[in-house]
């Protein structure tokens, strides 16, 4: 049994919320730089140039990359031999978010009730997904999610006979619908399989994977590559103003599913696709 104090958890969550919002994850940063070099549309290149300049200003002048500093999505993978000392894990995660958004000058973008819509004023609660595994380690990923792109995400309950072609169709349909609203160039997180809620979770998790890493399953890797190419052939372009850079990456996660189903969730991430992971 290994003990981890809630103070350590609070401090790390706070720092991760701030880090994610001021310095873009290196995979996405590299992706935008490579896209800038390759983009041939003058308007598209201008937008990508603005994004690169924006990243420099954010880091050097301590201004968040985007004013939508997101809803804090938290993935917690906790070893069953870890003992949390000093209080509740859930409360300490939310306390870390509270301090991070306050001390980091991040926007408070949450309302307490979806219909009454009163701001919670501290950006809590976060959305926390727990996974319990063997061992004595605690891995935490923070992925602040903006809603310009979240709003453009979709779930489809396809039929087994739809196969990979059917998946491609609905992914392209979703990207087309997202258009300029999702702040392209986008990252496309896709969950295939599981159940209604599981595929959505897989899609969200897929957005936290480095975009330079492909699936280790050959048929999924092929699907990722074909989709990226097809999306970039759509011509939506940076900011939706035309060009060959519509997506920087397509990440797919899969899970076993029912004999009757083929659930597919498409979670769109904007170019400020933030994710920070720490192992405690």
């Amino acid at each position, binding site marked *: 049994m290994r003990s981890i104090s809630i103070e350590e958890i609070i401090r790390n969550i706070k720092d991760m919320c701030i880090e994610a919002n001021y310095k873009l994850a290196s995979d996405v940063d590299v992706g935008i730089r490579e896209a800038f070099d390759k983009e041939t549309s003058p*308007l598209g290149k201008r*937008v990508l140039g*603005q*994004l690169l*300049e*924006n*990243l420099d*200003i*954010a880091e050097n*002048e*301590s*201004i*968040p*990359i*985007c*004013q*939508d*500093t997101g809803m804090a999505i938290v993935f917690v993978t906790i070893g069953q031999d870890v003992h949390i000392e000093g209080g509740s894990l859930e409360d300490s995660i939310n306390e870390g978010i509270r301090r991070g958004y306050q001390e980091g*000058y*991040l*926007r*408070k*973008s949450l309302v307490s009730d979806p219909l009454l*819509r009163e*701001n919670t*004023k501290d950006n809590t609660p976060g959305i926390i997904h727990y996974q319990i595994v063997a061992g004595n380690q605690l891995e935490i990923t923070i992925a602040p999610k*903006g809603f*310009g792109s979240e*709003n453009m995400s979709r779930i489809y309950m396809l039929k087994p006979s739809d196969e990979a072609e059917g998946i491609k169709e609905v992914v392209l349909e979703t990207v087309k619908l997202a*258009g*300029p*609203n999702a*702040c392209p160039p986008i990252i496309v997180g896709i969950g295939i399989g599981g159940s209604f809620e599981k595929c959505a979770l897989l899609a969200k998790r897929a957005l936290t994977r480095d975009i330079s890493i492909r699936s280790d399953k050959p048929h999924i890797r092929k699907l990722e590559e074909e989709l990226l190419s097809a999306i970039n052939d759509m011509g939506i372009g940076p*900011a*939706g*103003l035309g060009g060959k850079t519509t997506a920087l990456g397509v990440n797919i996660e899969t899970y076993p599913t029912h004999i009757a189903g083929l659930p597919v969730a498409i979670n769109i991430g*904007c*170019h*400020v696709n933030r994710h920070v992971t720490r192992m405690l």
Partner: protein
Amino acid sequence: MEKHINTPLTKDKVINLEAGDYVYITGIIYSARDAAHKRMFEELISGKDLPFSIKDNIIYYMGPSPARNGQIIGSAGPTTSSRMDRYTPELLDLGLSGMVGKGTRGSEVIASMIKNKAVYFAATGGAGALLSKCIKESRVIAYDELGTEAIHELYVEKFPVIVAIDSKGKNLYE
């Protein structure tokens, strides 16, 4: 074409702007997003005046992150405009002449823009740090209790936008 405009954005300026123009805005503009639009709409229904004179003015669909000490404003990029579509034709009828945001607009908004001679500009989404550098003054003038969604009066200098939909209905997104 590159064009520089100063606010107020009178109709004679609007009709010279064409979809695809790179425009740099200087002068006073007003921030308002979802909650502020709902409030303004409710005030109009109950016969009250809007918190600022809307005629020949520009609304920026934006809710900033908080400013640090010494900063004028935090990150300040555009939000998705179509969420304001429901409230927009009414404001255009009252003389609103320009909007800054990101993404497409509905057909009713575009029809009202043509009727009222108004223009819709796109600013680059996710470039809030860069855009904040063009904001030289910021103060909350209404709905302070809405936090980031309060209406801010902003003085901007050479604020970079593109004409996405012009007053003839030409749409860069199509």
